[in-house]
């Protein structure tokens, strides 16, 4: 695409990968179809198709990212040359690469499908393609011998197609398409082992809870479409679904505030559901019923960030709708803040390692939301990027532990402990990722999470900065606990080689299967575990772990604010510029001719660099003043907190406190428990004694725990968990029950009696009348005659009366 040239000779470069980015989701989509139809006949049961498609998507995304970087460079360098005076001006807006083809039409308007490539989309594309590839490779080993091996890869591939399709959506309808496909795959994958009711119930719960949020997506899209369509058609020649159109409309100052607010609230409800924010987060921990690679891909690193992505994608809508720049509390930041704390507290009381990670994910998503709500767009997006690596790594490590260390158990208290010696690689990757998650300098999490906290404070949201710091402390503490329980201390249960079957989910699958010859393999491998005890996982599992751990170490450097501006690559390449852009005449694009439907290829050709000559507007970016006629802007001017070591030191100290105190506690609590047990039991014997002894011990242990881990944490966590299980879950269940009962009642009493009764009643009435008249038809001629003549007589009488 050629930028409209004004005074300067700046041409935004483009490239094959950028122009053909639509191939990125199409490849896995095709692979999905192939796996479904031919997967079972392939030598590797279709998994090779999945892995290959993901790798090629990764190559395409990588190529596009490379060309995008060049494009940004070409624009930025050009802009620098073009600036005559060194006056401060807004960051240049690099035109996204957009292609749309007609997908459907209504009322004469054409609506498109296509791609919209910019820094944000590319970040997600690369992350999704990358993590998907690794997870699929990992699954080759992890699910080896599963009875629905092919189905699993098909669903994973379809998921990636859906997510990629959503990420590069140029309009809301395509975004909804990808969004819902992800929901479907989430349903299929959580319920992968649907023989057990708990799994299928979790799958149902996940789909249903997210679907409740999706109401908001439909309604929000409707509100925004009808409010924006006239403006976008007039000014940009695109529909009110178009994402850049919506952004420009929101920033134009001509948008109705109520439409913006309602639209933003409705869309945010969808984000709450999808990204597991309070109070709709309850589905996410249950979703851990799915296989671990699924938890790693869908429920931590990619799918659940879709909600965050939506907010980041339509940021101007939320910016204006929620007044992010003007207030110091709004809906998004509030929900994000609550989520951080609620989820982090819950992570303390879990026995299941995956549930700890699940609550941790919820909490980290809360960080992203809080960041977006407080105007920290870039740190939030960067946190999506870094979080994907270390959280995926944590989940895959947990999977590796259960696969090779704890005999398919995820119970940290029962079946783990002391695994660090037996599984050195897994333990190392886990610990690196844990430190990255906790935000230890210079690992990935530090650069993103700390930036969020910093910017939240800088944006004036002081209370939420404290929430963020509290969250950082909690994160460090609960992750230390999980690490200690899994890898240190004494070996317990399966980790110690003790074989107990009751919890073993995989055995059940093997036992019920009679069709699949691979199950013998599973049984064999189980026996092998029983024989050899815990051991390191094979290469197909450890290599992805190591790659992810390496990224958890280094990914943060891609936007290392502390080291100066030259390290802030994300800021340069991902954050959209907030300058005003001239609405150009729609330049005919070379691809327009290729569009066989002859419909418009929506190309917002704009004078990217024209701004340099416009003295007036170069001074300030968007959202400071409304753009002038003929100018639009696509992104608000967000502020960036200047980095200060003093602030970073504070948060680092808090993190260190969390790590150390939690570690000390764990050592005291878990390893030296025997010593303390004696002391406590003696005291308790006096008080209670007898059978409740054990129970009392546990109770006091919890009390003890409270003293160590900031005494109040535990009761609140308990309360939160109680609220979570009883009130929030109870409302969901209760609503289900009530509506079932109501439905039953309505059906029985109204449908079957009243409405149906009226119909049946008219039939009965006709029958009754017939029955009453029956005796008249006696079959006797004389009676008929009598009737005839009497009727005639009466008729005559009436005639006579009338005529006289």
């Amino acid at each position: 695409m050629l930028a409209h040239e004004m005074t300067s000779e700046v041409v935004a470069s483009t490239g094959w990968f950028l122009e053909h980015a639509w191939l990125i989701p199409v490849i896995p989509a095709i692979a999905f179809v192939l796996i479904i139809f031919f997967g079972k006949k392939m030598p590797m049961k279709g998994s090779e198709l999945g892995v290959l498609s993901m790798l090629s998507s990764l190559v395409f995304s990588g190529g596009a990212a490379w060309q995008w970087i060049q494009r940004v460079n070409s624009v930025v360098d050009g802009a620098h040359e073009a600036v005559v005076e060194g006056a401060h001006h807004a960051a240049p807006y690099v035109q996204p690469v957009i292609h749309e083809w007609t997908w459907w039409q209504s009322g004469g308007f054409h609506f498109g499908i296509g791609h919209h490539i910019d820094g944000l989309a590319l970040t997600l594309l690369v992350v999704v393609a990358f993590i998907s590839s690794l997870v699929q490779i990992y699954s080759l080993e992890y699910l080896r011998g599963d009875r629905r091996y092919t189905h699993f890869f098909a669903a994973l591939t379809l998921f990636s197609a859906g997510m990629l399709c959503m990420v590069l959506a140029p309009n809301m309808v395509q975004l909804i398409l990808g969004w819902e496909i992800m929901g479907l795959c989430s349903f299929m994958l959580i319920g992968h082992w649907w023989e057990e009711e708990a799994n299928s119930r979790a799958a149902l719960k996940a789909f249903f809870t997210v679907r409740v949020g999706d109401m908001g997506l439909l309604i929000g899209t409707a509100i925004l479409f009808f409010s924006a369509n006239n403006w976008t058609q007039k000014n940009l020649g695109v529909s009110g679904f178009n994402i850049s159109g919506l952004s420009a409309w929101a920033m134009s100052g001509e948008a109705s505030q109520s439409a913006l607010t309602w639209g933003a609230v409705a869309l945010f409800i969808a984000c709450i559901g999808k990204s597991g924010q309070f109070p709709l987060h309850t589905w996410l921990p249950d979703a851990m019923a799915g296989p671990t690679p699924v938890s790693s891909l869908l429920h931590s690193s990619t799918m659940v960030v879709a909600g965050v992505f939506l907010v980041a994608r339509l940021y101007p809508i939320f910016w204006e709708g929620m007044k992010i720049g003007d207030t110091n509390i709004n809906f998004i930041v509030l929900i994000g803040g609550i989520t951080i704390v609620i989820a982090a507290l819950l992570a303390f009381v879990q026995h299941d390692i995956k549930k700890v990670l699940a609550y941790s994910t919820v909490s980290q998503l809360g960080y992203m939301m809080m960041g977006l709500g407080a105007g920290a767009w870039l740190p939030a997006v960067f946190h999506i990027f870094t979080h994907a690596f270390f959280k995926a790594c944590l989940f895959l490590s947990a999977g590796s532990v259960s696969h090779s260390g704890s005999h398919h158990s995820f119970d940290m208290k029962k079946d783990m402990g002391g695994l660090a010696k037996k599984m050195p690689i897994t333990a190392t990757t886990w610990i690196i990722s844990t430190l990255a998650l906790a935000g230890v300098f210079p690992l990935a999490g530090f650069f993103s999470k700390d930036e969020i906290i910093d910017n939240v404070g800088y944006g004036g949201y002081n209370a939420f900065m404290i929430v963020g710091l509290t969250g950082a402390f909690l994160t460090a503490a609960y992750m230390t606990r999980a690490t200690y329980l899994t890898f240190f201390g004494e070996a317990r249960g399966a980790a110690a080689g003790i074989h107990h079957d009751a919890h073993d989910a995989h055995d059940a699958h093997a036992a019920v299967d009679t069709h699949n010859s691979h199950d013998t393999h599973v049984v064999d491998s189980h026996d092998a575990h029983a024989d050899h005890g815990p051991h390191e996982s094979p290469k197909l599992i450890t290599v992805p772990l190591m790659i992810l751990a390496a990224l958890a170490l280094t990914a943060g450097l891609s936007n290392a604010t502390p080291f100066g501006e030259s390290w802030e690559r994300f800021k340069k390449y991902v954050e959209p510029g907030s300058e005003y852009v001239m609405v150009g005449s729609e330049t005919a694009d070379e691809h327009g001719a290729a569009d066989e439907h002859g419909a418009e290829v929506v190309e917002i050709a704009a004078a990217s660099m024209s701004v340099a000559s416009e003295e007036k507007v170069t001074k300030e970016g968007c959202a400071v003043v409304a753009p002038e006629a003929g100018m639009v802007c696509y992104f608000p001017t967000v502020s960036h907190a200047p980095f200060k070591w003093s602030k970073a030191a504070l948060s680092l100290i808090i993190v260190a406190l969390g790590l150390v105190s939690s570690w000390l506690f764990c050592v005291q609590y878990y390893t030296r428990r025997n010593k303390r047990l004696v002391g406590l039991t003696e005291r308790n014997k006096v008080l209670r004694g007898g059978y409740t002894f054990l129970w009392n011990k546990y109770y006091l242990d919890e009390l003890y725990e409270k003293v160590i881990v900031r005494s109040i944490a535990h009761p609140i966590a308990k309360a939160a968990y109680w609220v979570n299980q009883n009130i929030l879950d109870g409302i969901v269940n209760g609503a289900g029950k009530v509506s079932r009962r109501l439905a039953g009642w309505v059906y029985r009493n109204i449908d079957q009696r009243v409405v149906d009764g009226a119909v049946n009643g008219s039939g009965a009435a006709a029958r009754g009348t017939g029955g009453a008249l029956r005796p008249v038809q006696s079959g006797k001629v004389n009676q008929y005659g009598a009737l005839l003549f009497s009727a005639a007589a009466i008729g005559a009488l009436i005639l006579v009366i009338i005529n006289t």
Partner: protein
Amino acid sequence: MLTTQFLLLGAVLFCIGVYGVLARKNAVMVLMSIELILNSVNINLLAFSVRHGSVDGNTFALYVIAIAAAEVGVGLAMVLLIYRNRRTIALDDLSEMKG
């Protein structure tokens, strides 16, 4: 006027006919009563025809006579058939049309 007497005669015949249709059980008697009714109508028609000085009534009376003949023919044939099948022509026994 003479026509009044004719009309009176017609009325009397009609009443006799009606009585016969209602009270008689024998199908042949009922048929004969119907004949009486038809003929009472004929008399009425002729009386009015004379009174109005037109021939319409005469024409109608001729029609009625023809139809009455056909009716008696068909009716008697039916009675004969019923008699053959059931050995009775009492109308009370013939209530197959009961609803």
